[in-house]
């Protein structure tokens, strides 16, 4: 990846320079999209939520002081966007889960589908900690920063989320 001076890019984006905004988008789009996809379970929703995340981020960029990294800041916005949509939505059903539609399916596909379905049945907060820890591989400290909470609370939430996830997976494979 080209060596980017992020401080300069952020400053230029703050002044409304489109090229700088595009650089930020291109660099972080997959990260945001994956969080949104794992939280929603639907590609269409993930695209909309990713769009909403970047719109919110660019609108609020002037308030970004650099206390945390740009990635952490974007994770926080993405999580807030996902949680606000999920509050309005019920759990994800099996019919809603989309994965490699039309492709030849194998055991891995089934497993991924199961994971996505179980995630969809978890409360949004449990889903968030699992996604951030297991898919995004953030540290407890980073998750605490993203979720604006303490490391202790993250550990408790993650422990409960994992237990719930395991229960649901066992139920599914009985």
């Amino acid at each position, binding site marked *: 990846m080209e060596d980017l001076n992020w401080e300069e890019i952020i400053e230029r984006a703050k002044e409304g320079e489109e090229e700088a905004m595009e650089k930020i988008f291109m660099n972080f*789009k997959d990260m945001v999209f994956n969080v949104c996809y794992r939280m929603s379970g639907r590609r269409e929703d993930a695209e909309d939520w990713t769009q909403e995340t*970047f719109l919110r981020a660019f609108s609020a960029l002037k308030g970004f002081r650099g206390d945390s990294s740009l990635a952490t800041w974007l994770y926080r916005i993405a999580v807030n966007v996902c949680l606000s949509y999920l509050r309005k939505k019920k759990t994800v059903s099996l019919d809603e889960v989309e994965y490699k539609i039309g492709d030849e399916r194998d055991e891995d596909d089934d497993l991924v589908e199961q994971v996505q379905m179980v995630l969809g049945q978890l409360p949004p907060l449990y889903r968030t900690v699992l996604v951030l820890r297991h898919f995004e591989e953030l540290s407890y400290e980073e998750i605490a920063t993203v979720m604006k909470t303490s490391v202790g609370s993250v550990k408790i939430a993650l422990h409960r989320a994992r237990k719930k996830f395991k229960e649901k*997976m066992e139920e599914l494979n009985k």
Partner: protein
Amino acid sequence: MKKLDCEKIEDILPLYLEGSLPEREAREVEKHLASCKRCFSSYEEWRRCFSALQSVPRLQAPATIWFKVKRELSHRRERKIAWFPALASLIGVSLVFIFIFLNLYRQPKSAPPALSQQPHYQVNLPSPTPPGIAKAVPVAPKIAKTIPTPQAKREIVLAKKQPQPFSPSSRGIPASPKLKETIVEEKIAERLEMALLSAQQAESSLERAFKALSGETGL
């Protein structure tokens, strides 16, 4: 370290699997798992869950999202600019109306004494303008001077101020209360008309200013 029981093992198995247990504690877990079938089967379950979570591939976001983001950002910018001239026109028109109404409220109080001061027995000489209206005449040109109106519209307004051929006061007949009311109403109508013209002019000048501004910014 105390020997770990099964309940404790169940709790710390996820931490053991993600490698966040201190080494000494991790060794204790391994020892326990080697000797406890129940905990070992629980460990297997946890391991399956972890590998299931790890099996989820990362996806690529479609680049088309950027175009949607870009379009929405420019819409938002346009909306932000669009409300400015509307607000400016609103403030301008409101100021004009406030000015006009302040004048209207002041005027009816001073106008009636001009009529009442004239004794009823006095025979008024025919004058070009009725006495009540005569006082109001300087006000209208004042507005017209500060905010120039189109010539045609000014003529209409001024024509209304010309003495009426059969006006009672022009023939020296004392002004009755009804006549006073009529005169005041006429004056109000005049002021309103002037106000409307001024408001229209203010609006058109704001529009011109906005167009000039839009031309400069290239919007």
